[in-house]
């Protein structure tokens, strides 16, 4: 076959409705799942050092199960497995987006809990000691001292998680949720012009991730505690032990 790239077809794909809608859907799903994952993950991270053995055990098993099983399996379990246990999940109110949101949030929470735990650990213990010495309550110390300092460490790996999650959303096609990658696949198989269809999708992903990188850089600057005169110089966040990142 002669090597060719039909720019017109590429542009058509790039500006088509399914691509645009698919990209918006992927971003929506990523943002809400990451947000929920962070919140749940935060409590899981705290639970790891709870004084109740039952809480610690629960967190251990939760992380174990959600990190060991493939995300695809979790999606299918929630979509096709739950109705077998409780037929209420086969009803039309249980939309694919909702199912994907639940699966991805629970999954992400397991990974975020380890990232957050590492972030909390990275804060010098003297900080909490000083807070206690002042008479601050543990909740205050967390909120005013520890969490802000932990967040600075947590931002880079969380950016990673956003990117991973964005790409994971394409798995939801198995539960009938059509997003960007599905739009590309369908377009490619309908006219056999794969190169143009896939390149257009790749462009979308590149743009989305680039936007994230800008947002992340801004966030990191906000959490650099130097007076504004010094802020102009770039500050690298202190190194933290690598959180295992599986290709899942």
């Amino acid at each position: 076959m002669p090597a060719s790239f039909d720019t017109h077809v590429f542009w058509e794909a790039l500006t088509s409705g399914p691509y645009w809608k698919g990209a918006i859907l992927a971003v929506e799903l990523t943002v809400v799942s990451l947000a929920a994952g962070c919140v749940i993950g935060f409590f899981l991270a705290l639970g790891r050092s709870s004084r109740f053995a039952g809480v610690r055990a629960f967190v251990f098993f939760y992380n174990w199960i959600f990190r060991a099983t493939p995300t695809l399996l979790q999606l299918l379990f929630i979509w096709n497995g739950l109705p077998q246990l409780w037929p209420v999940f086969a009803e039309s109110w249980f939309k694919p987006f909702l199912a994907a949101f639940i699966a991805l949030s629970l999954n992400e929470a397991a990974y975020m809990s380890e990232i957050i735990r590492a972030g909390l650990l990275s804060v010098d213990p003297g900080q909490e000691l000083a807070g206690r010495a002042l008479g601050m309550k543990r909740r205050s110390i967390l909120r005013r001292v520890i969490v802000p300092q932990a967040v600075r460490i947590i931002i880079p790996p969380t950016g990673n998680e956003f990117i991973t999650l964005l790409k994971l959303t394409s798995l939801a096609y198995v539960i009938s949720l059509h997003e960007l990658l599905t739009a590309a696949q369908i377009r490619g198989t309908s006219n056999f012009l794969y190169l143009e269809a896939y390149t257009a999708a790749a462009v979308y992903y590149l743009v989305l991730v680039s936007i994230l990188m800008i947002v992340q850089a801004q966030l990191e600057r906000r959490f650099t505690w130097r007076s504004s005169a010094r802020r102009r110089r770039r500050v690298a966040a202190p190194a933290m032990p690598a959180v295992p990142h599986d290709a899942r």
Partner: protein
Amino acid sequence: MNDVVLRAADVRKSYDGLEVLRGVSIEVGRGEVKVIIGPSGSGKSTLLRCLALLEPVDAGDVYLEAEPLSGLRERDLTAHRSEIGMVFQRFNLFQNMTALGNVMCGLTDVRGLKKREAREQALEFLDRIGLGDKANSYPEELSGGQQQRVAIARALVMRPKAMLFDEPTSALDVELVREVLDVMEGLARDGMTMVVVSHELRFAHHVASSILMMDEGQVVEEAPPDRFFSAPSHERTRRFLSLVE
């Protein structure tokens, strides 16, 4: 005899089976400055943390103005901790707040003051220790001596009944030690009740009401500075002094 502000009565404490405090008793009257010296591992810092109510004791009791505190619930302990100021060897300033923010923190979060009032008081204390112009600097940008002085202001602004210092100058470069000791001497002159763990013997001689020698989890000797340095009664005290002087 003036009233006792802080008292430890026969306190015992172990970590992982190792006994660190073996029946330690200490009494600090109002306005007194007690300096504790001794070899490392003698339990000085542990004692200080117990007095600050940061560590529970295994036996014995800690009294703040005659009120026994060892059996209290965490909720009540928290309230009392704010009445005892603590200054750490490594300053432990809150990295994510300016000097002003650090000093305000206790006022807003513990005493419940409004931000404006807290800021006013904080600025006043920062001025008092000569760091008013550094109010908006972050700890990363301050020298060790400046950080420690901010730490002292942070504790002081809570108007504590007593101030505890855990080797406050040990982590400082030599030329920065003086500025911190000056502040501490000023506090002593103003009548603050203080317990200081330190190696700065000249400071101790100059400022302390009495000096305690600790070794292996016990108080070996306590005496006013002149007697302590010129005629120590215990063998271990003599040996330690000969090592450090």
